[in-house]
């Protein structure tokens, strides 16, 4: 009885996560989740600190997934360890830490940059309007 309940809950969780994943991907495809400014600053210019953080996040995330799968013994060649989460060594944390700290310091430098008149980038795309500014008053 307990194992049947586990199975049912497992399929339910899988279904919900799958639906969320499909919804996110569908909204990205339709353009409703807008990634245009994913690595951009407020000024409209791309940011190297954001880009390198994006790369490391994908790499560590994919590695974590591959290691969990290998340890679960699901596929041939895997070493079954009961599906335990892997230990994350200090070196990996240091890599992510350097990347994230660099992003934070970069933001701090940018926030403290001396503002000069006329220093704003004239080619920068304007910030998207807030949802309540999209329709004229009284038409919502």
């Amino acid at each position, binding site marked *: 009885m307990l194992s049947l309940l586990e*199975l049912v809950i*497992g399929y339910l969780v*899988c279904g919900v996560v799958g639906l969320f*994943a499909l919804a*996110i*991907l569908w909204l*990205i*495809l339709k353009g409703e989740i807008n*990634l*245009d400014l*994913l*690595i*951009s600053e407020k*000024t*409209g*210019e*791309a*940011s*190297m*600190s954001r*880009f*390198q953080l*994006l*790369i*490391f996040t*994908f*790499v*560590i995330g*994919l*590695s974590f*997934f*591959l*290691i969990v*799968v*290998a340890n*679960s013994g*699901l596929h041939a060649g895997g*070493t079954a360890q009961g599906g335990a989460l*892997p*230990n*994350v*060594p200090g*070196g*990996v944390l*240091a*890599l992510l830490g*350097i*990347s994230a*700290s*660099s992003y934070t*310091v*970069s933001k701090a*430098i940018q926030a*403290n*940059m*001396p503002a*000069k008149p006329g*220093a*704003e980038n004239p*080619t920068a795309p304007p910030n998207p309007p807030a949802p309540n500014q999209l329709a004229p008053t009284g038409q919502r």
Partner: protein
Amino acid sequence: MRALAELAYWEVLFLLMALAASVGLQLFTGQINTHGLFHGRRGDGSQYFSPERVQLLLFTMGAAFQFLASVLHDPSKFPVVPDSWIYLLGGSHVVFLGGKAGAAFWGKS
């Protein structure tokens, strides 16, 4: 239970790959803005080509590929990252941040 584990495996793999493909494709087609990725901005508002950003990208890509290759080679555990990598990558970030701070606070066009 094995079928459930297989389902979860393919589901997460599909989500990760689709997200990575979506971001990668939009980067290559220019839909995700990469304008000025290799350019810095001085305190007076002028732009300049920034070699420190280029070296940061090269070190980051190198470390990321090496890390992923190590995981694919032995996916039973996270690879041990040698100290030299951490010093190299840390140094690369210090150069990038130093260049950015220098241009922002003391840079002149």
